């Protein structure tokens, strides 16, 4: 995937989350993650990705200030 495609998908996900609202957005992300898991279908790789997502998770001050 090139940078433009990545950027377009990033924006599409942001818009999808915005449209369902803040309360529902985590559910949307969970569903998206599940669909991505079955699509990627590489168990070892997926365990690495789950670990990477949890790594260095910023504390809550990283959001909500702007």
């Amino acid at each position: 995937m090139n940078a433009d495609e990545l950027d377009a998908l990033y924006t599409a996900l942001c818009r999808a989350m915005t449209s369902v609202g803040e309360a529902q957005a985590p559910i949307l992300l969970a569903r998206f993650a599940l669909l991505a898991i079955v699509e990627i279908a590489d168990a070892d790789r997926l365990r690495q990705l789950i670990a990477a997502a949890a790594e260095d998770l910023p504390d809550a001050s990283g959001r909500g200030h702007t």
Partner: protein
Amino acid sequence: MPYPFVPERFSAGLPPLRDGVDRVRHRVAIVGAGPVGYCVAIGLAVHGISSVLIEADDSVCAGSRAICISRRSLEILDRLGALPGFLATGLPWTGGRSFYRDREVLRFAMPNDANQRLPPMLNLAQYHIEQILLDRVRELADRIDLRWQTRLTALEPRADGVRARLATPLGDYALEADWVVAADGGRSTVRESLGLALAGTSYEGRYVIVDVAMPSDRPTERLAFFDPPCNPGSTVLVHKQPQDVWRIDYQLRRDEDAEAAVRPENVLPRVESLLAMIGETADWAPIWISLYRANALTLERYRHGRVLFAGDAAHLVPIFGVRGANSGIDDADNLAWKLAAVLHGHASERLLDTYSEERVAAAKENLGYGAKSTEFMAPPSFAFEWMRTAVLGLAVRHESVRSLINPPQTSPIAYTDSSLSRAAESSPEFETGPAPGSVLVEAPLGTPAPAARGTEAPAAYLTQVLGDHFTLLHFAPDGVLPADLAGIEAGMRACGIRWRTVVLGAGTDEAAAALRALYGAKHGASYLVRPDGHVLARWRRCAADDVRRALAGVLDRVALRIGDG
């Protein structure tokens, strides 16, 4: 503390009047002596057209406004004869760094290969930009009638021109002109007079803009700090300007009161903690504080009868991505040669519709990039904010997401769908090189090289052969121009059209070979280039008749005596 720049003040004047009306009917009146108005006036003068330039103020601007001039703008300014002042004053830069909290997460470089003559970006204050252009305007005083302290109060459009009502401290008068260029900025009086409004998106996120005086040897680069320890939850941008002036932009929190936020007692501690964080210990002083809110707005059309809109009067682009002044300079460059062609009687008014068509398309592209940058720099919803936090946090270890942090910097816009390019019947079989509608790709010329614009000396780089004319670049490996192409220049001159035919690619050195490869012209090819440096058409093999047909779609009022025509 004042800026290290003292603007010269200019007095108002009144032209000779008859019944309260300027005795001279002007061909072009330009409203607004900012960067765009100056570039239109200089561009018209270069193309042989006189104008009157009206400015409400008594000096060049003050304060912190446009500060980054792109390579494309520098190429335009070069053709306008203003480049030396920019290069002498501005600070060139090629990239920057972004930080998340205390970690560097991105180092970016703008395109800057060995083929380039000019830096990708140059920083200088808008008062410098205006002063350098004003100096050029004064050299062209016989063609540009600049009137200070002259404020437009109303504009009456008419079938064959306009009547402008002007107010000065010496009294009011009216002025008639065949054409008006509205370069009077974001709060355009011309736009208001015609009952037009900009449409698009206004963003909630607010930034405080601060200029400070501070001596520092820090290099010129763009620094961005997301959620920095000195200002948690905020985004801070830092740019170096000439004369030890530093521009600092920081985002306000949603709950902050705008009026309080720009009070020095609230601004200075934030600047102090930023400077401490980046290790600047010298004494500093604030010069300027203002509030900014991003807009992504445009008019639907830039031509309304005899009124042509350019720059901020036509469109407001977010500051992130530096496309404001740069897109206005591009507007001026597109407009000047077309308006001159109409006034010289070479083209019908339809050519000015292509100004609107091409520059509205460019504005939409610029607004798209500007919106993207703004969505990252001032997230418009919780979702953009969450995702930005995800990108920044992951970027420390995962290079694959770093491109999402990189602000899409301004790049030359191609008029790919322009009716002028489509009508010009290029040959399709090019594997490389700038397509019709694109700007020329810069490259060193090697030897032998044609003369640079306005000199006898050989040009070092391709863009130096462009000027106030159409240019036919003919790649001839043997250095010989075919007889029928050789006749074009004289044929054009006979029609009063400024023209230059340039033979390229004849050298045996590396540069000549690289140039041929860059333009897909190993075995000869021709590029027809507009006065604004955009390719109008290109051919693998071209006859004079191809050139005549391509040009006839642009200059539709001249019987071109070349080729079979």
